[in-house]
């Protein structure tokens, strides 16, 4: 289904298709906004979020503090910016772990299809997959203590079977193709075929799935931080901002609204982008429309 050859003319076609897919463009813009905010936060934020100004607490949004201030007098806009950085970093690395470990496992299983190795790899993946992701994350942080690094590992582990299954399924269909057969006849080994012929042809699929997993990773990070298992203070995190705002929702609703909106828009943006990408990459779907 995704075995189209990436030639220059087709590449242009993809770009054109992207421009003509509104959901992708909206998703892309939303994602880029947060990505930009995250990158900008490394060099500049309106205020220093480690500096507390108790006298200035719970201020409503104004020209000086666009999103208002929290219970410690910190600027919420700055916190949302740095929160974006934390969320994106955690999700990105977690998806990275999933791809780097999951894809080779899936390719290996496909290359050795029907062997004991295939069975072992895939059943191990089923085992991880069957375990509720958040429960596993809580277990990991309970054992190793709460921190951003442990949150990354926990979310990363639950990404492995997703990519392993996906790449195995897609690779299996490719192994039947004539050009793979030709490569085998030419004497190429299974590993080389996987790397040179299979992987490039499942990349589109991986990108689409990666985008979706990325948004799930952001949600998972927010969820873990919300229950106190993710990023630890003083580094701001959207999930923790929400949990801290909880008891103040009646006196200062802006404390919950802004990080909440940030999570909604990032996840929405990534999902729209993922959906759009699938439409763009999948010619059959595109033609059907």
């Amino acid at each position: 289904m995704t075995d189209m050859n990436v030639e220059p003319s087709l590449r242009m076609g993809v770009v054109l298709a992207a421009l003509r897919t509104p959901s992708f463009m909206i998703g892309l813009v939303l994602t880029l906004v947060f990505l930009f905010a995250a990158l900008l936060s490394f060099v500049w934020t309106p205020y220093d979020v480690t500096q507390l100004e108790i006298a200035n607490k719970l201020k409503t949004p104004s020209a000086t503090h666009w999103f208002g201030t929290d219970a410690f007098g910190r600027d919420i806009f700055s916190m949302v910016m740095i929160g974006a950085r934390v969320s994106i970093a955690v999700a990105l690395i977690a998806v990275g772990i999933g791809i780097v470990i999951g894809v080779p496992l899936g390719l290996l299983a496909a290359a050795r299809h029907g062997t004991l190795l295939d069975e072992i790899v895939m059943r191990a993946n089923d085992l991880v997959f069957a375990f509720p992701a958040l429960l596993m994350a809580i277990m990991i942080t309970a054992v190793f203590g709460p921190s951003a690094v442990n949150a990354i590992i926990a979310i990363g582990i639950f990404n492995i079977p997703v990519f392993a299954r996906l790449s195995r399924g897609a690779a299996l269909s490719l192994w039947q193709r004539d050009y793979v057969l030709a490569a085998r006849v030419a004497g190429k080994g299974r590993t080389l075929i996987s790397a040179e012929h299979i992987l490039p042809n499942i990349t589109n699929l991986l990108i689409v799935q990666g985008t979706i997993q990325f948004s799930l990773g952001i949600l998972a990070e927010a969820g873990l931080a919300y229950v106190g298992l993710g990023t630890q203070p003083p580094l701001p995190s959207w999930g923790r901002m929400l949990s801290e705002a909880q008891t103040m929702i009646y006196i200062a609703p802006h404390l919950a609204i802004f990080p909440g909106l940030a999570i909604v828009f990032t996840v929405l943006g990534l999902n729209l982008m993922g959906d759009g990408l699938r439409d763009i990459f999948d010619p059959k779907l595109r033609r059907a429309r």
Partner: protein
Amino acid sequence: MTSAFKALAFAGALAVSTALSPAAFAAKTDITVGAQLEPPNLDPTSGAAGAIDTVTYSNIFEGLTRFGPDGSINPGLAESWSISDDGKVYTFNLRKGVKFHDGTDMTADDVKFSLERIGAEESTNAQKALYADIESVEVVDPHTVKVMLSKPNGSMLFNLAWGDAVIVAPETIANNATNPVGTGAFVFKDWVQGDRVELERNADYWGEPAKLEKVTFKFISDPNAAFAAVMAGDVDAFMPFPAPENLPQFAADPRFRVIAGSTEGETILSTNNKMPPLDNPKVREAIAHAIDRQAIIDGAMFGYGTPIGTHFAPHHPSYLDLTAQSNYDPEKAKALLAEAGHPDGFKTTLKLPPPSYARRGGEIIASQLRDIGIETEISNLEWAQWLEQVFKGKDYGLTIVSHTEPFDIGIYARPDYYFQYDNPEFQKIIEDLNNTADPEERDRLVKQAQKKIADDYVNGYLFQLANTGVVNAKLQGVWENAPTQAADMTAVYWED
């Protein structure tokens, strides 16, 4: 208008008002009290959880002496007592006609059983140390009991007022954890685990009967749910209320009254006195000067709390105000750090238990310490982890916790306690204190002890936790202060 007609009109009005009065003036006789923590069991003599006392203290169980709402020690099941000249023999005269809820009489034998049980080898009493000086208990007659001490103990009457020393009956002790049988003004009725405990008025109470017929303790752990429950009138009182930020909203509502009394909770930045570089008194002094107490009270507690400079309750007559000795002075703090050999600061851990005073206070302190160059790595822990790692394992640099036991400065004399403060001079002061019954001498020693730990900057002393709660405006007789952990409902009533 003739006088006859007037009289008739008066009689008519009287008749109307009499007819109306039962409906119009009948005060409510039941109450639902909200509490954040559910007790693990209902036997205060064998568990440490303060939530047990909240439900049972004075409501179900009574001791020989008892705390008054102001923290004074009043007669309880003992109507009077005398102390021998050497301070080693206490003779208690028990009240007559006191019955346990199962109908049996409370006698000197029950007192002997209860007190001896605390010191028994298999006892799981949480405050065993308080009663360690009790050598033997002798029954003189059914209403007189003699308590023999191995050495004089000036705090014995105070110690006996704690929930850990209430009088229980040997016949019912086995089931007290789930079906408590005491002598109090309320009888245990039902416990729906995870939801509520119900008490009913004790019709055969020896003293003035409770004004309420029914008391329900409802356990709501989530602060938002607590807020909603109070607002909706599902609970008539919530003490202590877990989120101080919501109190101003209650205060502005005429249906409610906000309570802001005192507690015995010294909230401190506990410091591991054995962990370098915190083992250096100069470093601890620097930390003390880096802390802006008012910012913590305002930021973490929304203004509720009293600054303290030592481990002692400010409302206690022997309190010594030492806050000036550790005033907020970041420049001085930096100089002290440099003097201690850490001009560029250092890194340590700050492990925080769940209460908001710790979580929020921790972030504020971390920011204040960062200003003088000390980097703290914050980790938010659940209570079980905190008890395991910090309290038992002593694997921490700094932590924040409120020590809610009354008059607990003696913990500094325990070198194995989690601060690991080991100072023979201080231990001597506490030993002398325990052996002294003379009020003036005790006052002097207590002040000396306060000064000593402040001079050694054992911990960062932050503030005295306020007893913040919200009650229905028509509710009378609720304890404003919390001299011990209790929700004493015996004198509570609804105003007409």
